[in-house]
């Protein structure tokens, strides 16, 4: 962006930052950094909650037969694991990053609607409590898979109503957050920060926020119809009353496919910040990255049918959704090529953020390739609802979204906390995660090819070996995440002071214009971007 001149006058703000302390600071805060911090810790807590469920699932699947849980509880575990990871771990983590970074990266003093920002966060908490508490009500937690398909979901008890309420609250929170983000980006940019000068993370979030506003109401509509079908005698999804269960799938996936891009677009932004920083070379094609992000977002609205190839849609429908889905590979490829061209002839170093970003590129691409395989309708028919799909979406969500969250945390921890994390432990966390992850999820491709369905608590004997490996890998991966928690706490408590810009190649405003840690109030007078 511009020359590295430190706005020293910001540093003293900390001293007379007029905010309450203790619990009130967090309850009533309207400060984007406080709210960002709360989102990130919340996300970590949910990540461990969903992680415990995942490990229970993998413990049960370690060998054939039912050893630990009964089938019903198993179904609840997969369902709530999925919901918690998607809505509790990944999405809030990105909102946390957005809160911390967007105002600093566009040179704004705070988010556009600070009070609404506080609300957005505090809504998420009761929603998460509802989701987790639903395990303890009669009938147990939702057991329909995170896709909540009727009529199965109509059969269950009160936990479904809790889940529906939770989804509503989360949707409201996401919409408020998105309005805030869009307004901040469009109205509060510093002088000279034109749209095409914004860091890519800001761009990807701008587009993500539009996706959220477009699809969260759709999900809200779908679950409201479930609710009225359950309690008020409507028959939206009940054939006996003139409804159609397939309609729910259409509506759900019209939300669901953009949803996966909501989880991955900010990841593209983070990786696009980290690769140039550690290659010490500008991003190869800034403009084409922006256009690729926008094309992916637009295409994401017309591919939902690829989740429904087995409902028996007409050939024309299958072909349309197959072509549209394959088309998404083009802008996605553009992104991967761009990152590699950025690395090409750079002067690279491999600190933890860079390692996680490279891990992201390789493994996300594997997830992209398996996605391409699944896009081919006839092949999807044989792989739909098998472990191949489970492998595919964990490659894009865990080694995609989650790895880039790790990369982002390690990258910005110095700015967030003013301290340096331990490089040695960070690298250890990376290697354990990559190895554990691949042992856990690569064999699942083979299980899917051999025909093992997903969401089953028990399986035929020919699936035993790969499942055992998958469970071993999952436990390695899961326990390695305790090291991540340790790394963050150790970093906060250490006395390794971080430089204002510890990374040679980082050049966005938060690095060039603000000290580390970033002061409580930053950019009260806007910087000028040249």
């Amino acid at each position, binding site marked *: 962006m511009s020359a590295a001149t430190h706005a020293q006058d910001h540093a003293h703000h900390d001293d007379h930052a007029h905010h309450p302390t203790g619990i009130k600071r967090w309850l009533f805060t309207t400060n984007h950094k406080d709210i960002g911090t709360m989102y990130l810790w919340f996300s970590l807590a949910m990540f461990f909650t969903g992680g415990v469920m995942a490990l229970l699932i993998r413990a049960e699947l370690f060998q054939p037969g039912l050893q630990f849980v009964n089938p019903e509880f198993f179904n609840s575990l997969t369902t709530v694991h999925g919901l918690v990871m998607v809505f509790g771990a990944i999405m809030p983590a990105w909102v946390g990053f957005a809160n911390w970074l967007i105002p600093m990266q566009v040179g704004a003093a705070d988010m556009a609607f600070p009070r609404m920002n506080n609300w957005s966060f505090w809504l998420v908490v009761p929603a998460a409590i509802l989701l987790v508490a639903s395990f303890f009500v009669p009938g147990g937690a939702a057991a329909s898979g995170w896709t909540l398909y009727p009529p199965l979901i109509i059969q269950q008890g009160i936990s479904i109503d809790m889940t529906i309420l939770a989804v509503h609250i989360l949707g409201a929170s996401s919409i408020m957050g998105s309005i805030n983000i869009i307004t901040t980006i469009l109205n509060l940019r510093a002088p000279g920060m034109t749209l095409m000068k914004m860091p890519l993370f800001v761009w990807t979030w701008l587009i993500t926020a539009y996706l959220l506003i477009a699809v969260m109401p759709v999900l809200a509509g779908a679950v409201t119809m479930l609710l009225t079908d359950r309690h008020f005698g409507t028959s939206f999804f009940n054939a006996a009353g003139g409804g159609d*269960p397939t309609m729910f799938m259409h509506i759900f996936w019209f939300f669901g496919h953009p949803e996966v891009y909501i989880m991955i677009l900010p990841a593209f932004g983070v990786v696009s910040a980290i690769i140039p920083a550690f290659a010490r070379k500008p991003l190869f094609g800034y403009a084409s990255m922006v256009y690729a992000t926008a094309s992916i977002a637009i295409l994401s609205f017309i591919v939902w049918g690829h989740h429904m190839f*087995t409902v028996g849609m007409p050939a024309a429908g299958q072909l349309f959704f*197959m072509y549209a889905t394959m088309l998404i590979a083009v802008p996605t490829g553009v992104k991967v090529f761009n990152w590699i061209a950025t690395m090409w002839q750079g002067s690279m170093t491999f600190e933890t953020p860079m390692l996680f970003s490279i891990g992201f590129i390789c493994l996300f691409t594997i997830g992209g390739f398996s996605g391409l*395989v699944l896009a081919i309708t006839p092949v999807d*028919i*044989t792989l739909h609802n098998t472990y191949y799909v489970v492998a595919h979406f964990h490659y894009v969500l865990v080694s995609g979204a989650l790895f880039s969250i790790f990369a982002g945390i390690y990258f910005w921890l110095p700015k967030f906390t003013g301290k340096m994390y331990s490089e040695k432990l960070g690298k250890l966390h990376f290697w354990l995660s990559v190895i554990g992850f691949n042992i856990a999820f690569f064999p699942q491709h*083979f299980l899917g090819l051999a025909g093992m*369905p997903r969401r089953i608590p*028990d399986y035929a004997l020919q699936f035993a070996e790969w499942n055992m490996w998958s469970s071993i890998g999952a436990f390695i991966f899961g326990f390695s995440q305790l090291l991540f928690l340790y790394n963050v706490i150790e970093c906060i408590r250490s006395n390794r002071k971080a430089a204002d810009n510890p990374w040679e190649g980082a050049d966005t405003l938060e690095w060039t214009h603000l000290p580390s840690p970033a002061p409580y109030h930053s950019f009260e007078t806007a910087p000028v971007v040249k």
Partner: protein
Amino acid sequence: MGLDMIRKTIRNAAPAVAALVMGATANAAYDVDILPPASPIAQQIYDLHWAIMWVCIVIFVVVFGAMFYSIFKHRKSAGAKAAHFHENTTVEVIWTVIPFLILVGMAYPATKTVLEMKDASNPDLTIKVTAYQWAWEYDYLQDGVKFNSLLATPRAQIEEWQKKGEAKNPDYLLEVDNPMVVPVGKKVRLLVTANDVIHGWYVPQLGINQYGIPGFVKDTWFKADKAGTYRGQCSQICGKEHGYMPIVVVAKAPEDYAKWVKEQQAKNPQAAAPQQVAAAAPVAAVAEDPSRKWTADELKAAGEKVYAANCVACHQATGKGMPPAFPALDGSKVATGAKGPQIALVLNGKQGTAMASFSRLTDAELAAVITYTRTAWGNKAGEVQPSEVKAARKG
């Protein structure tokens, strides 16, 4: 429990490591491929999958070869100085157009297969497949043969919460009491639907994965290339026993198939009501004559079988259920109360709960299972005759 698991892990891991080290991935247990296709469509799927896999593998190797080359060559520690180039329209157009062309190349054969898959016209044989929680019903529309197909693996092999299960059958969880039987080389059209929730009729080797959606009938087709037994499972989560509703298709030479149809029809002279159930032998007897008066003992004996096949999943063999989700029948007011409401409940199910309609069972089977639940465990209510069920069905 935890420690035990770790011990088990280690015990199981050792041979697995050894197997892997010896390059035993060729071993069936370490399968890494789609199962051998057994129908023309499955063959096309197989070929498509490998075609696209190879394209992906080649692209992966080239692209990541370049990346790792760069990682080793262009590192600061190796003295690399950063170049400063960026934006190059030619390069960007090339890497947009080439992938696009590759995709077009892949879409072409895929399209042909899609069109072929969707063409279920002119079948030699049509079977209606109805999914229930948790059984499949096969109705051979031309031949008047109709039966249910349920998991045949004994519970004692499955449940290991308290103690280690019995030794598992080789086809553990992939075996059924009555498989679907089809003639080799004939085009079989399936009409797939469901009674309660969405299920998926999935037999990978035949290239079929089709949701059964309550209230809608969807069609698909296959043609088995060679005689054999092809196994699959329900592919769409359908409640607690979703992992326990396998599918077995036996493809026989057309003559053998014709013989099988004769046998089935003989078991069931009235083609109009060709229902028989699950637990083969004793229950076949149930189907014989619905108007006859049964003794209480006959009903109880047959009812226990029907109960084991259709009700234990929820109400449990002990009749204690799994409250609050699945009520106990032992001591239940309904099960020990008036006959009318109870027959109606089992016949029609209860809307909005997991208690589905069991109208697919014959009058005799229903009478038997209702009698059983009225008299088993601590219950001491009277028997129900098939004629009463028949009357309830009419009314």
